[in-house]
């Protein structure tokens, strides 16, 4: 039996609480410095959408401890999630976990793991997991005049509109294949959308060097099937998630194809959009 290590009782414990998309979270630590760093980064973790609130009753409780050997331990709801000796890695990991918690339990929203841009009044959504080139694709589209909404999550409301989640773009290739550097949409010469947009096209695409672009327009059922693996709250609230996905596939074009390098691919993408999205 796998028994997880329980959170320790701390002599000194700092704490703050916040609400993002209706998800109530408490974050505690025995390191006031580390906690302050997280608090300072909340605006970039949850762009435009969090409220610090000292009196809310949290549903998700995180604790980060640092011991004398500089070993960091992260607990969720009293159980150990992970540990490591790099503050920077723990910080990145924790930020990612915070976002995922909100993405999974957000009230009246469905988060897709996806890149999103606005084009001619509608959103183009690219559901994909990490290392599939979402951010690179989004960056190239921004350079070509598309509005930035997100390089990580498509935040869908109950009417199927996609809301901006304009975190800084995390681009790998500019420095090293695996190390990410953060860029704002403005620094790439782009603009961020301030309003939610209806979805015009969902593109299920995966980067493959030299791949041939052969877009297939999917039926509504197959489209949902392809999007489900990228739908963060699908296990938590399948009914609401599927209802929202149904609205998307009802109105938008859902296409699937492998793609090659982002730059040459953008023209093909725009051509597909012009031909199919009314």
């Amino acid at each position: 039996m796998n028994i997880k290590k329980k959170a320790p009782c701390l002599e000194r414990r700092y704490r703050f609480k916040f609400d993002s998309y209706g998800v109530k979270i408490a974050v505690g630590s025995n390191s006031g410095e580390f906690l302050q760093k997280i608090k300072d980064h909340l605006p970039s973790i949850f762009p435009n959408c969090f409220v610090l609130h000292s009196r809310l009753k949290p549903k998700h409780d995180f604790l980060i401890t640092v011991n004398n050997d500089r070993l960091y331990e992260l607990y969720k709801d009293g159980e150990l999630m992970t540990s490591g000796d790099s503050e920077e890695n723990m910080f990145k990991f924790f930020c990612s976990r915070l976002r995922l918690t909100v993405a999974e339990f957000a009230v009246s929203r469905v988060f897709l793991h996806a890149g999103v841009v606005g084009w001619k009044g509608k959103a183009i959504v690219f559901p994909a997991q990490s290392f599939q080139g979402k951010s690179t694709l989004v960056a190239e589209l921004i350079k070509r005049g598309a509005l930035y909404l997100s390089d990580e999550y498509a935040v869908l409301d109950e009417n199927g509109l996609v809301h901006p989640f304009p975190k800084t773009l995390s681009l790998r290739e500019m420095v090293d294949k695996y190390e990410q550097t953060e860029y704002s949409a403005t620094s790439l010469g782009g603009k961020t959308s301030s309003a939610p947009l209806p979805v015009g096209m969902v593109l299920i695409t995966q980067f493959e060097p030299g791949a041939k672009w052969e877009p297939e327009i999917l039926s509504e059922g197959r489209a949902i099937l392809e999007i489900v693996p990228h739908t963060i709250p699908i296990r938590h609230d399948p009914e609401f998630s599927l209802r929202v996905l149904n609205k998307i596939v009802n109105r938008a074009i859902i296409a699937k194809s492998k793609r090659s390098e982002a730059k040459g691919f953008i023209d093909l993408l725009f051509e597909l959009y012009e031909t199919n999205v009314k």
Partner: protein
Amino acid sequence: MNNSQIPVARKQGLVVQEMPEEVLIYDLDTNKAHCLNKTAALVWKSCDGNNSVADITKSLENGFGSRVEEDLVWLAIEQLNAKDLLTENVARRIKGQTRREVIKKIGFASVIALPIVASLAAPSSVMATASCACTSPGSCVAQTSCPNPNNCNTVAGQCIP
């Protein structure tokens, strides 16, 4: 007629989304999504516990306005069985022929689409699959969709190939 030849569609523990040409079913027990094409969806909807396979075949003939082979209904039932979308397993009717042979036979003879049930599992753990951030090789192990389950790049804080 043997009761096992009266298939019954499972209703418990499923979230069902109807679409014009398909039905999307999410199985809450297995966390799998199934997409039934029009033919498979019609068969599944006809499995009400009263209709025999012969009745379902007739119902399909009425729905499509053309002759339907009973084997085509059996082909759908076999898939629905395999995906756990019927309340209990129905005894296999297509004997002595491989599935491929049956598909070939029906495919040539039928003007309606062969039944298809396409399935996909939801991520085994959303928390794990949606991000490949890590602090140690141990935290990559649980993230099955990441490029490598054992290789945590501690500089980048990501599981890398």
